[in-house]
């Protein structure tokens, strides 16, 4: 075997080798070639299932969103019409104060009198007028009315009460003949004021049967059924 000549490396070979050993250099070499891991095989099925689910959902969501919007619009429209009707009814009832003779009745909050309280006491304590805070479309002018003084009346505890209001002579000329019928209810279940106008009746009938019973009867009787 022939002996081949040997060559000496550079004097800096050891330093160069040490440089390669440096941590940063080795890091730079190995980081791009780090071993890779394989995921489980079932992942692809999960991905496709998720993709299919997301394909379906948007269509369903769009339809449901559209249905929800339509439902909200319909509901708001219906509720708006209902509230408008209510406002109209309220206006009919409170638009004009009902005139009885020379005095005018105005809405006051209803309170059930106890057995010991008298009507007169109630009349004094209760506020005379009801001032709405916000004006409606057709605002109501508040008319100052003379304070009504009524004789003291006591209510007994019996179920059926009759209240007799003493005679109040109203000149016949002042009583206006009208087609309107006014009913006031103090019932606990449905208190309120009802105005009816029987249009079927003619003016001639009115002439024959005058409405003002106050002129005929000297005594007005109110029956309270509890």
């Amino acid at each position, binding site marked *: 075997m022939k002996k081949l000549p040997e060559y000496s490396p550079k004097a800096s070979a050891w330093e160069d080798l040490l440089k390669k*050993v440096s941590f940063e250099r080795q890091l730079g070499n190995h980081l791009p070639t*780090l*071993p890779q891991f394989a*995921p489980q095989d079932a*992942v692809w099925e999960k*991905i*496709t299932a998720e993709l299919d689910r997301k394909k379906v959902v948007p269509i369903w969501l769009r339809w449901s969103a559209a249905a929800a919007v339509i439902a909200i619009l319909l509901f708001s429209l219906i509720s708006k019409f209902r509230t408008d009707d209510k406002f109209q009814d309220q206006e009919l009832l409170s638009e004009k104060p009902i005139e009885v003779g020379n005095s005018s009745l105005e809405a006051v909050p209803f309170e059930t009198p106890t057995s010991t309280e008298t009507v007169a006491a109630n009349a004094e304590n209760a506020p005379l007028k009801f001032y709405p805070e916000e004006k409606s479309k057709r605002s109501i002018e508040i008319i100052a009315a003379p304070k009504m003084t009524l004789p003291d009346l006591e209510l007994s505890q019996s179920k059926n009460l009759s209240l007799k209001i003493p005679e109040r002579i109203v000149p016949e000329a002042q009583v206006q003949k009208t087609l309107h019928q006014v009913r006031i209810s103090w019932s606990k279940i449905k208190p309120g004021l009802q105005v009816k106008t029987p249009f079927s009746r003619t003016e001639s009938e009115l002439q024959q049967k005058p409405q003002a019973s106050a002129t005929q009867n000297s005594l007005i009787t109110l029956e309270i059924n509890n």
Partner: protein
Amino acid sequence: MEKERIDLRLIELVIAQDRKAQFQLFELTKRMVYSLAFRILNDEDIAHDVLQDTFVKVFQEIKNLKHPEALVSWMKTITARKAVEKAKRQLVFEKLSSAEDQSEDHFEAWFDGELLDQAIRSLPAGSRTVFMLVEVEGYPHQEVGRMLGISESTSKSQLNYAKKLLKTRIKTLLQA
């Protein structure tokens, strides 16, 4: 490499929601995506969740990708962000003492990729994430800080801490 086999035709088919093309892209890139997620999280189950979320997002939003040649980088970005989202709750950034800063910097040992991988996975979650994002994925410290909700200087100090720990762990692994 995956990049060479992901040609424009395949990307076009994936954009057209072709299921076969989607599967082909998945097969070509699943190891890359999963390995990145697994190294950041060091948890197989969560890494699988990240893999799934990443591919769902890729297939749904690939039509918006302006530069198809940047597909692999884009997928890595999605993976890293998804992994960080998942890891954020468990990330704790240890405060570094001055003693650790002055620790021995001398390193004389040969190591390979396998050993480096083991050492990386043994790092604490916070410094491991910073190391992976900066050293492996090449994110700047500013962006890493934004992603992890830490300052740029914290990101830098966490990287130095990770490297010091890596040296120690590699030495320990070599001696074992």
